[in-house]
C-alpha cells in the first residue's frame, strides 16, 4: 500500500516505480545508474553501460527506455547546440534509482547469505 502524506495524497512508491517498465526495467536501471555520474548523450550512455555492466544496449531499446524515463519525469534532456542531445537524472529519478537499488541489494544480500550458509559459497 502506498504511504499517505500529511495532505492525504498517496506518496509514490519509489521502489516499485521501475516495475511498471516491464521488459524495460533492466535498461532503465542501467540508464539511471549511468546518468547518476552526470549527463550523457545516447552513444556515451551505450559505452558507459557497456563498461560497467558488460551489456550493450541496442539503439532501439535504449531510446524506448529513454522515452519512458522522460515521460515519467525520471530523466530530462539538457539543452544543447549539438545534434547529440544529452540527458540528465532528475531528483525524482535519483530517489527512484536509490530505492530500486536498495531493494535489489536486499535481494542480493539474502541470496548471498543463503548461498554461504547452505552451500558454503562466499
Amino acid at each position, binding site marked *: 500500500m502506498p504511504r499517505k502524506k500529511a495532505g492525504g495524497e498517496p506518496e*509514490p512508491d519509489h521502489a516499485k*516505480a521501475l516495475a511498471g517498465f516491464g521488459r524495460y526495467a533492466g535498461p532503465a536501471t542501467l540508464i539511471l545508474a549511468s546518468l*547518476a555520474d552526470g549527463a550523457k*548523450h*545516447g*552513444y556515451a550512455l*551505450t559505452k558507459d553501460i557497456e563498461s560497467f555492466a558488460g551489456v550493450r544496449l*541496442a*539503439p*532501439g*531499446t*535504449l*531510446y*524506448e527506455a529513454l*522515452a*519512458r524515463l522522460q*515521460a*515519467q*519525469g*525520471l530523466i*530530462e534532456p539538457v539543452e544543447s547546440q549539438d*545534434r*547529440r*542531445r544529452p540527458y*540528465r*537524472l*532528475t*531528483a*525524482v529519478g*535519483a530517489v*527512484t534509482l536509490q530505492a530500486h537499488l536498495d531493494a535489489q541489494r536486499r535481494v542480493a544480500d539474502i541470496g548471498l547469505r543463503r548461498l554461504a550458509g547452505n552451500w558454503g559459497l562466499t
Partner: protein
Amino acid sequence: MNAPDTAAPDPAAPDPAAPDPAAPDPAAPDPIAQRAARLLRWYPKAWRSRYGEEFTELLICDIDERPRSRSRTADVIRGGIVARLADAGLCGCAPGAAAQVRASLASLTCCAAVFLGFGDAMWSQLTIGWQWSEPDSAATTVATVVMSGAMGVFAVLALLAALPVACSVVSRMARGGPRGLLGPAALFLAGLAVVVVGGRHFGNGWPGTGGHPWAGQGLVPGGVAAFSWASTLSVSSFWAHPAALAAFPAAELAWMALSPLAAACVVAGAAAAVRRTELPPGVLRFEVRLGIAACVTMAVFLGGCSAWITSRPPGPGNLFHPGAIDVAGAVVMAAALAVAQRAARQARAGGRRPRRPYAARPTGTI
C-alpha cells in the same frame, strides 16, 4: 646545344591539378548516414521529429563501430513498430494522456469501421433474405434479430460519438482554429456523400426491395436492407471468380471498386478529426465510455454472426446460407474486435490518469 630548362610535359604523367580518384568525393552522400536515415524511417513522424536527430547520431556511431549487425537492425525495426503502435494509441507511452486517449479513440474508430464493413455485408444478406422468406432455422432467426439489435445500438453510439467531435470541429473552424481540421472534414464529407448517393442509387435499383409477397414482412425496412447491401457490395466472393465478375454491369463493377475507397475516406477523415480535435476532459471520458460500449456491441454482433455461421443452414441455394466470404469476414471482424478492445483499454487507462505520478514533483538535478 643545351637542353631546355623546362622539359615538355610528359603526357603519361598524372596531372597534379586533377582530383585523386581514390579520395572520397566530399559532395557524395555518406553511406553510413544513409543507412541510419533508412533505419530511422521505421519510426513514426512524431517520434522522428522529437528524437530523429539524436537517434541518427547514435545510429551513425553504432554503425561506424559495428558495420554489420543484424541484431541492431532487428532491434531498430522492433523499436519502430512499438513506437508506431504507441503513436496509434495501442500500447506504451504517448506524449500526453489526452493525446494518447485521442489516438486510441482514432484507432478504435478505424477498427469499428472495418468491423462494420464486413458485419454490414453479412447483416444485409440476412435482412434481404428475410425480405423474401422467413428464416428456416431458429439459430438464423435469433442471429438476425441479435445482429439487427446490435446494428441499431451501433447507429445510436455512432451518432452520440460523432456529435461532440463534429460540434468541436465546426466551432474551431468557425473561429479560424487549426487548419489541420479542414482536410479531414472535407475528406469525411466527400466520402460520406459518395457512399450515401451511390448506396441509394444501387439500393434503389435492386429488385428485392419491394413488389413481392414478403416485402412487408422483413425485420427491417426494405430500403435500409437494400442500402446496406449496396454500400457493402464490394465485400463479395465474386472477386475470386473473375469470369463471373466480368459479366457484371460496368456501373456495378465501378461501384464495387469505388465504394471501398469512399468508405476509406470517411474513416480516414473521421480518425484524423478525432486525433486532432482537442476535446474537454469530460467529453473525452464520455467518448471513451462510448468506445467501450461499441466494443461490447461488436462482441454481441460477432456472437450472433458466429451462431448463424456455425448453425450451417442448408444451401447453397438457400437465402440464408453462409459462404466462404462470410467465414473470412468473421475472422476479420474478430481481429478488428481484438484491436479495438486493446485501443479501448489504452484509452481508458489514459483517461483515468489524472497526472503523471512523478512529473508533478520538483525535478531538480543532482
